[in-house]
């Protein structure tokens, strides 16, 4: 169903106002980027979305994805070696694959896996900072299809917001450079994965439910996602406290 233009405009406005509010506060980068990929799904009609960052070693790492299910995370992982995200980060240009089935020759390892997961189209939008490309926004569609011009513009704006978010996360200190920000964002993501594992096992919930519980707790307690995750992993915080805050039984 097509949303009417005015309804869409109001959604857009809400999204950008929320993100702008976040950016002036003491926010958590993984949380912000997670919010952003959720907007990609709702505003761009993507079926799944994710954001990968250059690990500055020639590879890519996932910072956020619209679901935390392992099968989607794996699709980003495989792109460390091949796929639209890698091409996008390497060239600094958007990569559009409206019909994935036709791209097997281009990405022989990535395409079968993406098709297998039920995706038929993939688009990648670069996260650019001046002359560097620091990552990409990845949009997956269950059906073949192009990204409309206005959606491409919106995707770029969301990608730019992510870039600003990553760079501004901490007040820019003396000597603070790209590498420090990127490495810290990526390490926070690792901490969150570790915390998801603790919660998933302690509460017998799946990884996505574990992540949601973490977010619900963070929001409810006005705490940064990665701080809560660190407390969980270092056992300073009892997993039961978190799981009680947003319990969802495993499906």
């Amino acid at each position: 169903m097509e949303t009417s233009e005015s309804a869409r405009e109001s959604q857009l406005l809400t999204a950008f106002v929320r993100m702008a509010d976040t950016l002036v506060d003491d926010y958590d980068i993984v949380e912000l980027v997670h919010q952003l990929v959720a907007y990609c799904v709702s505003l761009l009609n993507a079926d799944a979305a994710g954001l990968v960052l250059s690990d500055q070693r020639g590879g890519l790492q996932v910072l956020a994805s619209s679901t935390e299910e392992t099968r989607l995370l794996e699709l980003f992982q495989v792109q460390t070696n091949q796929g639209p995200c890698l091409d996008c980060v390497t060239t600094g240009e958007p990569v559009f694959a409206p019909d994935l089935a036709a791209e097997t020759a281009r990405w022989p390892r990535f395409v079968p896996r993406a098709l297998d997961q039920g995706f038929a189209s993939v688009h990648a939008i670069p996260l650019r900072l001046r002359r560097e490309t620091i990552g990409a926004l990845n949009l997956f569609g269950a059906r073949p299809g192009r990204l409309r011009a206005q959606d491409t513009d919106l995707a770029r704006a969301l990608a730019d917001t992510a870039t600003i978010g990553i760079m501004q996360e901490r007040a820019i200190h003396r000597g603070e450079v790209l590498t420090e920000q990127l490495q810290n964002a990526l390490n926070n993501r690792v901490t969150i994965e570790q915390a998801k594992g603790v919660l998933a096992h302690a509460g017998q919930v799946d990884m996505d439910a574990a992540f949601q519980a973490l977010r619900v707790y963070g929001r409810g307690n006005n705490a940064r996602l990665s701080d809560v995750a660190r407390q969980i992993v270092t056992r300073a915080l009892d997993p039961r406290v978190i799981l009680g805050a947003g319990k969802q039984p495993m499906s």
Partner: protein
Amino acid sequence: MGETGDDAVQHVRDAVITGLRGGGTGLAAIESVCRACVDLLPVDGASVSVMTGVASRESLYASDLTASRIEALQFSLGEGPCFQAFDTQRPVFTPDVRATGAAAWPVFAAEIVTEPVGAVFAFPLVSGAISIGALDMYRRAPGWLSRDQVAVALRVVDIATLVLLGLRLGEVQGAWTDLPLSHAQVHQATGMLIAEFAIPAEQALARLRGYAFAIGRLVDDVADDLVSRRLAPVALGPP
């Protein structure tokens, strides 16, 4: 990244793993990591220290007298780039210590002027919530690392992290796998073991690696089995 740097780092990684598998000590591995910094990067010395907090730290290796002085100074003062890297879990780049060091570490900057140190680059040795130490590099002349050099530095730091995490494996001789620390499942599985055994994260990771080695499988595959619940964490417990 330049192909030359790429190959060279891979070579260092291979050499370190071969050495460890052949019965070499973790210390010898750290030594070759520090040597690699000096060989591959425009730095004059490197050092690695293990830390569990400001109060608990140990210098493992320093490639020369100046590197060792930089460590000793920070340890005695309780401030400096390596502490900052460890505390903030971010690399700390100080391309010109004389010009900018005083703002962040007044005492350290005042003392370091007597040493031939122009630039210090400090990297935390971390994997998520596991913080094990820091790797410091120094250069006599001030100056930045280029983007390609940062890539080489980060990959060498990854090797140092791998080696230090491996030291925790202790008696499991030869349990050196080419650990893929970039895979989400490894971190998730680590978390599951923390929950199962109420142990610190680094022990949980060591247990995962030790188990994979003992049964002759890849860490990645064991992590996959745990996350998809084909394997119960309790199976990785002490016999």
